[in-house]
């Protein structure tokens, strides 16, 4: 299967990419690693007339720690995020994306801008309360994770903007857990759960949980968080809280799993992810 014809521009700077987006409007798409966009183009579900490749744009690669947060260039591939263990939850989740070949090409910025609720990193960004930096015709702005994912495959990044950087808090003192259920190891998650837990003694000081593929957008399991925050952390309290993981969700049924099965998975995986994050 071959994509529909398009023009190709290898941008040398963010400004050049922005100019191309301004000129071609909705006909243009940005190309990062291409591992979300190219499959859509091959199936002709997307047919941009102009592809703007960001690969040669300087300054979009790399991972740096700075003043309590991580700065990750949008073009940084999953393999590099996965091998930076200090990133904690993000590294763990990135290492479970698809397979090694996909992780060698797919990028953190591309994945977040694509905004697939079944992919791993959107819910991680949400749980970590990170943000993305975008550049547009009117300069630079920050979009908090909670404001990024608007609807199915739709994010707040404008058609005339370039996502340049991802920011994640360092989350010192938090334990993390990540659980993903798939039929084949390289598949998208039927359901995934990201958990972050900060504890003082055995009391849960803070807890944040991100749900993957439990709705049109990635979401937080707020009922679980409320049930556990301030409570002692033990097998019973975690199980009781995790039983609320599907509250407020509307998971899409698909060939692999019915909506009810996904609700069940969310509870089981949430218990496991919390248990791991709490170090129990």
């Amino acid at each position, binding site marked *: 299967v071959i994509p529909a014809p398009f023009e190709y521009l290898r941008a040398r700077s963010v400004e050049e990419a922005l100019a191309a987006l301004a000129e071609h409007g909705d006909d243009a798409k940005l190309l990062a690693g291409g591992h979300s966009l190219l499959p859509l183009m091959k199936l002709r579900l997307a047919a941009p007339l102009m*592809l703007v490749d960001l690969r040669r744009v300087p300054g979009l690669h790399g991972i740096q720690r700075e003043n309590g947060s991580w700065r990750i260039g949008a073009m940084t591939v999953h393999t590099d995020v996965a091998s930076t263990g200090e990133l904690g939850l993000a590294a763990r989740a990135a290492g479970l994306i698809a397979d090694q070949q996909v992780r060698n090409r797919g990028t953190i910025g591309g994945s977040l801008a694509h905004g697939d609720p079944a992919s791993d990193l959107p819910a991680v960004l949400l749980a970590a309360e990170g943000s993305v930096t975008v550049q547009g015709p009117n300069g630079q702005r920050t979009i908090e994770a909670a404001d990024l994912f608007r609807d199915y495959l739709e994010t707040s990044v404008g058609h005339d903007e370039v996502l340049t950087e991802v920011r994640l808090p360092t989350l010192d003192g938090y334990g993390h857990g990540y659980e993903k259920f798939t039929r084949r190891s390289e598949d998208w998650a039927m359901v995934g759960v990201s958990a972050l837990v900060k504890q003082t003694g055995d009391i849960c000081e803070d807890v944040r949980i991100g749900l993957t593929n439990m709705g049109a957008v990635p979401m937080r399991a707020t009922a679980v968080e409320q049930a556990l925050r301030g409570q002692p952390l033990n097998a019973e309290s975690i199980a009781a809280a995790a039983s609320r993981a599907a509250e407020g969700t509307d998971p899409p049924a698909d060939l692999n799993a019915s909506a009810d099965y996904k609700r069940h998975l969310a509870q089981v995986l949430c218990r496991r992810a919390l248990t791991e994050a709490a170090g129990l």
Partner: protein
Amino acid sequence: MQVSLTVNGQRRTDEVEPRLLLAHYLREVCGLRATNLGCDTTSCGACTVLVDGTSVKSCTVLTAQADGAEVTTLEGLTGSDGELHPVQAAFRQEHGLQCGFCTPGMVMAAVGLLAENPDPTDREVREGLEGNLCRCTGYHNIVRAVRTAARS
């Protein structure tokens, strides 16, 4: 558009359509037919080649994205005297193939894996090759072949 890349050590420049996928470029423009197209949806791994030393699925990479890169296909592993690469030799010795369709991709993914992890455990081999499907389900001997290659 014009692309310049190095394929199996040979530098070449070609005029291609922007939509030409790397797998088609290798097979039809370069005439290198070891790289197979299986699922064509980034799942099966039969089209795995190395781009700048790391394994990629060439059905999901534009030739334009490989401009300036060094691409290695299965043909590029074999020495000029026809001597098999250690991973190829190990696949033969351990019978790491049945019908052979997945083999070029398996070998290239294994070469990529061993470059990162020269002495993987069985589990690490299985996880490292999770992006490559063998419809004959001959995984056991494939894992053994990769471990044999690591020792040689």
